[in-house]
């Protein structure tokens, strides 16, 4: 569990204005208070990790950020201006792209159809608008090559790709469509070791292009491998934000679990959790 990695770390200077700033966000679902005042911001070219155990409110929070949920209370500033998203399309067109935990891709559809899903290029033939498949195929192949994935062809179904490759396709898609903020919802949770490192490498590549990355995880090692800042969420509240190097993996782990119980568990398991 070392903090040394081969990745370059983004160096967001203190004066940098955040691209998105969320202040005291609250979200209630009926009687359930999912978020009880969460503050969070992302700067250009950094990877801000949002950590928390299951049920901490991570998914609810990023859904609020990406326009799926409307906050019950709290303010969102995007590039300094207050912002209200009506639906996910607004967030996408503003430059907030989300790569979701489970399926960002449709396995039965081809890579190029998935790549342009919801953003299909069009061309007019005799006054009728058609899906520009040729352009879609070329762009898809090119973007996939850049990300280091060699496709058999643009018609290859996403179902034939590995989990890591699917995440990479989803990330490449978001970057291609001009994302300023890239939200990755547990991109590594279902992946093997090698696939995880591919995804982490992709995150690093994306960050270097000046995109702000929000990396949601409950795995401290994965977060520490690429993160610049770390915010821990527990029971719908933030437990503070730490910069890289200011916090140890053990402290992060403790914060996520709420301390107590895990300390006992760790003792009985010999410190391997």
């Amino acid at each position, binding site marked *: 569990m070392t903090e040394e990695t*081969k990745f370059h770390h983004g160096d967001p200077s203190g004066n940098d204005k955040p691209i998105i700033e969320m202040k005291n966000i609250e979200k209630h679902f009926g009687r359930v208070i999912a978020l009880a005042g969460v503050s969070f911001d992302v700067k250009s070219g950094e990877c801000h990790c949002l950590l928390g155990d299951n049920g901490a409110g991570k998914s609810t929070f990023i859904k609020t950020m990406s326009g799926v949920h409307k906050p019950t209370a709290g303010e969102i500033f995007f590039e300094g201006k207050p912002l209200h998203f009506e639906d996910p399309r607004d967030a996408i067109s503003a430059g907030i792209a989300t790569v979701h935990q489970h399926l960002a891709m*449709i*396995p039965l559809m081809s890579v190029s159809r998935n790549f342009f*899903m919801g953003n299909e290029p069009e061309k007019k033939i005799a006054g009728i*608008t058609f*899906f520009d498949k040729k352009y879609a195929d070329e762009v898809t192949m090119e973007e996939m090559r850049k990300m*280091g994935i060699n496709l058999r062809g643009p018609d290859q179904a996403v179902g034939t790709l590995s989990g890591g490759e699917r995440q990479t396709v989803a990330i490449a898609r978001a970057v291609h469509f001009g994302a300023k903020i890239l939200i990755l919802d547990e991109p590594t949770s279902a992946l093997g070791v090698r696939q995880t490192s591919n995804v982490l490498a992709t995150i690093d590549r994306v960050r270097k292009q000046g995109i702000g990355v929000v990396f949601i995880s409950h795995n401290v090692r994965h977060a520490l491998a690429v993160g610049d800042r770390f915010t821990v969420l527990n029971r719908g509240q933030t437990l503070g934000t730490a910069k890289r190097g200011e916090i140890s993996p053990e402290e992060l782990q403790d914060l996520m679990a709420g301390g107590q119980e895990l300390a006992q568990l760790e003792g009985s398991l010999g410190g391997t959790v």
Partner: protein
Amino acid sequence: MTNATQPTAKPDERVKEISAFRQAMIRPELGGIVGTIAVFTFFLLFAFDSGMFNSQGVMNWSVVSAQFMIIAVGACLLMIAGEFDLSVGSMIGFAGMMIAIFAVTYGWPVWVAIIVTFVLCTAIGALNGWIVVRTGLPSFIVTLAFLFILRGFTIFLPQVIERKTIIGGISDVAEGDWLAAIFGGKILGGVFNWLGDAGIIATFERGNRMGEPVVDGIPMLIVWAIVLIIFGHVLLTKTKFGNWIFASGGDAEAARNSGVPVNRVKILMFMFTAFCATVFAVCQVMEFGSAGADRGLLKEFEAIIAVVIGGALLTGGYGSVLGAALGALIFGVVQQGLFFAGVESSLFRVFLGVILLGAVILNTYIRRIITGER
């Protein structure tokens, strides 16, 4: 972690090269193509002399196949969008009955009756879709309810209004109506006359139509089938909306997250299915000159069977309109071919079952190759 950062990727040594032939063969329609070839080979061998392949015979099974095709196109797009419509058969009966009531009982001009029926039926389709997307209930249940509701009205309304379950006399009121001709007329009569005169196709040998060809034109039913197939195929494979149909059926949640208006797509597909059922109904009413309360019985299953033979996945997200059209062709040829071949008609179901099973097994195998399912 080291080779992942290389800008160019190496071909994966674990992915086998696929020959061009195999790649051309592996397509969703393959099951339908194989089935069509098998069925035609069978009937060419066993029923060639029966009249099945002269002009009248060809027209006979073409019309039956075209009927299946019209409803299969709608069912296919809806199934790819991830939903079912079990009310298609009842919708056919209902639409036909509404036209008869409007045109015969109320005496409206036939074109008004047809347009009002189209509006009414697509609105019912929209209601079906709206209930499905709003409640999140399986479309199986919602449209099953409409199967009974619509059939009930189809029996109830004519009994209350006319005190019978069949309303006739539509041929008389439809005489000379411009819109009725688009559904009940025939085209290319001149070509068939010429073919008859040239002795290429059979002509009547006696009676008051002596010298006229036995087949005097292509019914508009077949034209509608071809137009709908081309429309469905182009919409599905060549447009943005087609991509949305696949996405909505493949994974509604992922599609929504990518900004696809899934609910709108699904409701529109329910409306299109209702539209296709109404086309079927209008053609049938114009052909028979009457509307019956029992019309369209079991058509929903026949449409679904044709679509599944054509390679579509029952759970949505995968399929082909051309495949569904081939499925409908197989259906029509088998149904009429067994009659020509002099086979006991009850064996039709045995045949159908065998073809359905064979095509679906083949399709599942092909789909797994294409999509990497396990």
